[in-house]
């Protein structure tokens, strides 16, 4: 824990300059966030800031609390202590309208979770039609736009089961984009895919990053984290053990990260 504190102060200046160039208040701010499932404390005081336009990669061993941290951001899990502010909403107050929050915060899951009875286009436009009440013509345009963003314009009329895993995951990303979120969370979105399909999904995420989308992603793709993330966060036993820019993976400061990177690469 000592090492971790040292590292985060060491990298603070780098992060600060970044914040200056990008935006004022962070989109996401964890302050001493704790989360337990029953007796098991999974997050033991997380401090983290994500500014607009930033890409943050969460890495760490299985069970270190990455998914839990991510799921707190859109209110899938409620935090037990500390403060968590997302898009100007104080989640710790317990008075946040989650549906309102989730219009600003999209999420993409490892298992895609597309709606199998709907076509790609219907999957993508369901929420905008129901939540934002857009009309049929507008919905079609929206579907065209977001499907083009993920390179699947020709699949609009297909059903999920007719697509490869990589294509399904890109539809899930398009579905998220269609809500015009300020922030998208990705939870190991390539873990169910073979290397080739992983590549096509990562390229889509990379393009979004280049386009200025704010993203928090849990990933096991170290090379991707290093090259795309503005901030890499290594979690260990419910704490942020080390964090910094992508190149921190090349010179790990703690034995835990060294071992993790050694195994992961």
């Amino acid at each position, binding site marked *: 824990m000592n090492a971790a504190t040292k590292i985060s102060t060491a990298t603070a200046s780098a992060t600060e300059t970044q914040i200056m160039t990008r935006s004022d208040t962070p989109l996401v701010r964890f302050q001493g966030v704790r989360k337990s499932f029953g007796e098991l404390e999974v997050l033991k005081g997380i401090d983290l800031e994500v500014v607009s336009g930033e890409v943050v990669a969460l890495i760490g061993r299985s069970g270190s609390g990455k998914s839990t941290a991510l799921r707190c951001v859109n209110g899938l899990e409620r935090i037990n202590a500390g403060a968590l502010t997302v898009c100007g909403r104080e989640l710790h107050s317990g008075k946040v309208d989650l549906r309102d929050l989730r219009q600003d915060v999209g999420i993409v899951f490892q298992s895609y979770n597309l709606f199998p*009875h709907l076509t790609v286009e219907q999957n993508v436009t369901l929420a905008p039609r129901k939540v934002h009440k857009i009309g049929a013509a507008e919905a079609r345009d929206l579907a065209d736009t977001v499907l083009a963003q993920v390179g699947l314009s020709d699949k609009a009329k297909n059903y999920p089961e007719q697509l490869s895993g990589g294509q399904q995951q890109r539809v899930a990303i398009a579905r998220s984009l269609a809500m015009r979120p300020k922030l998208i969370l990705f939870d190991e979105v390539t873990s169910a895919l073979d290397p080739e399909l992983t590549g096509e999904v990562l390229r889509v995420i990379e393009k979004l990053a280049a386009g200025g989308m704010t993203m928090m992603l849990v990933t096991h793709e170290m090379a991707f984290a290093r090259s795309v993330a503005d901030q890499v966060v290594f979690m260990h036993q419910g704490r942020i053990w080390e964090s910094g820019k992508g190149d921190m993976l090349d010179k790990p400061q703690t034995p835990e990260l060294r071992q993790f990177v050694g195994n992961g690469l």
Partner: protein
Amino acid sequence: MSYEFDFSFLNEYLPELWHGIWLTIGMTFVSIVPGFALGTGCAIGRLYGPPWVQRIVTIYVEGIRNTPLIIQVFWLFFGLAVLQVRVGPFPAAVIALVINVGAYTAEIMRAGFMSIPKGQLEAAACLALKPSQSLWSVQLPQAVERVYPALVSQFVLMMLATSIMSQISAEELTGVAYMIQSFTFRGFEVYLVIAVIYFVMACLLRLTLLGVAQVSFPRKRRLGTPL
């Protein structure tokens, strides 16, 4: 021992037979939609409702599924009379069928809802859909498609079960058969004919419901694969 078949009653009682057939078909079709709606509502109530709703639905469903239909019909018919509510045999029969098939449908639909992966519900919630929107647009279509064969069987069973409704003097097909038989003493032939008619009606009902599925499940129509 020889037996002379005599189907001449067919000609003589044709109008009565038609009347019975139409009454059976009418009872069945009028009961399907409200029965399905009631059952689906109960399934949702039992799954997502507050505890008191869950309890009421459970009592209703178990009460109906563990007593004979004919007792339910009598109970309703005479019960309504006690309450001074005057309903004819046809409406009484329909109400009884709706209540009966609703309970079975509730269990079938509950299984359908429970078979939907939790990730789907999470995804719907994360897209800012209201619970009611998720239920209507995400869960209901999938639940129905998954349990559709069971629903079809249930509705065919219900059609066959209308054959007891002559007990409250709704003169459906079986009632007509009994009447013809008592005039002609040609029970063997009469019930043979009636059985064939029920068989044909059951097949037609299955076909109709299959057609409804073709229209309702475009994905299934196009791909033919189960969800």
